[in-house]
Structure formats: structure tokens, C-alpha cells
């Protein structure tokens, strides 16, 4: 859960809200240790790859949408 204090530090240092949303969301979606240890163990690899293929694009879209919505 290091991500949250790290993100809070970025916010305090003046990071863009969209970048923070994308940062936290992409960690949530694509946490590497979670995927390597648990996701690959329980699911077929093609399921994991599809989720990994789709998630960054969507997190990237969130980064674009967030500043527009916050105005």
C-alpha cells in the first residue's frame, strides 16, 4: 500500500490531479506482484493478458478525462 502515501506526497508536491488518478488507478489495475503471484496462478494466461492489454489504455483515458471533469 506504499502507493497511497507516495501519491499523497505527489499531490502535496503539486502533481496534476489527472496524473495522480492515472497513477493510483494503474497500480490498482496492474499491480505487478499481484498479477505474478495470484492472477497467473488462478486464471488462464490469455485472461491475464487481455486484462493487461485493456487496462493501460483505459487508465490512460482516465488521465485525459479527469482534468476535464475537475474543471
Amino acid at each position: 500500500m506504499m502507493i497511497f502515501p507516495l501519491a499523497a506526497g505527489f499531490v502535496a508536491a503539486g502533481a496534476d490531479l489527472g496524473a495522480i488518478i492515472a497513477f493510483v488507478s494503474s497500480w490498482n489495475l496492474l499491480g505487478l506482484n499481484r498479477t505474478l503471484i495470484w492472477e497467473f496462478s488462478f486464471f488462464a494466461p490469455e485472461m491475464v493478458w487481455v486484462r493487461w492489454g485493456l487496462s493501460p489504455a483505459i487508465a490512460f483515458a482516465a488521465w485525459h478525462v479527469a482534468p476535464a471533469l475537475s474543471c
Partner: protein
Amino acid sequence: MNIIIGTVIIGAAAIWMWRALPNGVWRLAAYRNTFDTLKFTFPRILIALLGASFFAELLPTEHMQDWFGKDTGLQGLLMATIVGPITPGGAFVSFAIGAAALKAGAGVANVLAYVTSWTLFSSTRILGYEVPMMGRQTALFRIMICLPIPFLVGLLSGLFLQ
């Protein structure tokens, strides 16, 4: 197999770091830290794995196809997205439930939506870490932005997986 590969990679990294330690004092401190981490983590992991397995066994398999089957369409995706955040525990619980649901006849798209929903909106993580550390407004804003994601992942996964 993946667990074995992961263990080998992490083990190799640990050996490399152990060799990089400058002297015996540092190594002794590393052994102490390793033991403390093991003492803290092992009983929790053991109980969590048992709990996840029992939880997966308790799934109502007779209703699984009706609620989350591959023919449930948007309703199944919506249900999967709603169930994700209320799943208690960590990754071992949600992935074990997802795997058990697949075996019981749930659709792949619905399971992907469920897992994605859990990763993004796990209530224990949001209430325990995100809101206290990042503030209610930022957390709520992220949740609102990310709301369609599990639904979209499930929907689009149908293009690649049968």
C-alpha cells in the same frame, strides 16, 4: 508453474541483494528483518488461503450460471462490477473466488469485470488507506472516473476471449 518462476526470480534478486550487503552486521540485520517479516506474514497468509478456499467452496454454484453465466450480458457485467468492491480480504480471496466462479460456469467477461472491479474499488483498501491518506474528495473523484472501467474491460474482453 508461474509461482515457481516468480519464486525463482524473487529468490535470485534476494541472493543478489544479500551478496551486495557490505558486511556481517548488515547481513545479521537482514536475517532479523526476514524472520520478523516471516513471523508476521506466514500465519496471516495461511489463514487467508484457507479462508479463500472455504469462501470459494461456499459459492452458490447452482445460481452461478443464472447470475454470472456467459449469456447474462450487461446484467451479468453489472452484477460482477457490484460484487467486486464488497469482497472482503486481499488478492488471494478475490482471485480464488473468480477462479471458483469460472469453474462453476461464470462467463470469462463477467469474471474479468469482477476482478477489475475488486482491484479498483476494494472497499477495505479504499476505506483503510486511500481515503485517510489521499482525502475523501480525491478518492471519490478517482472512483467516479474509474466507475466504467470494470464494465468496459468485461465488455471489450469479449472481442478477444470466447
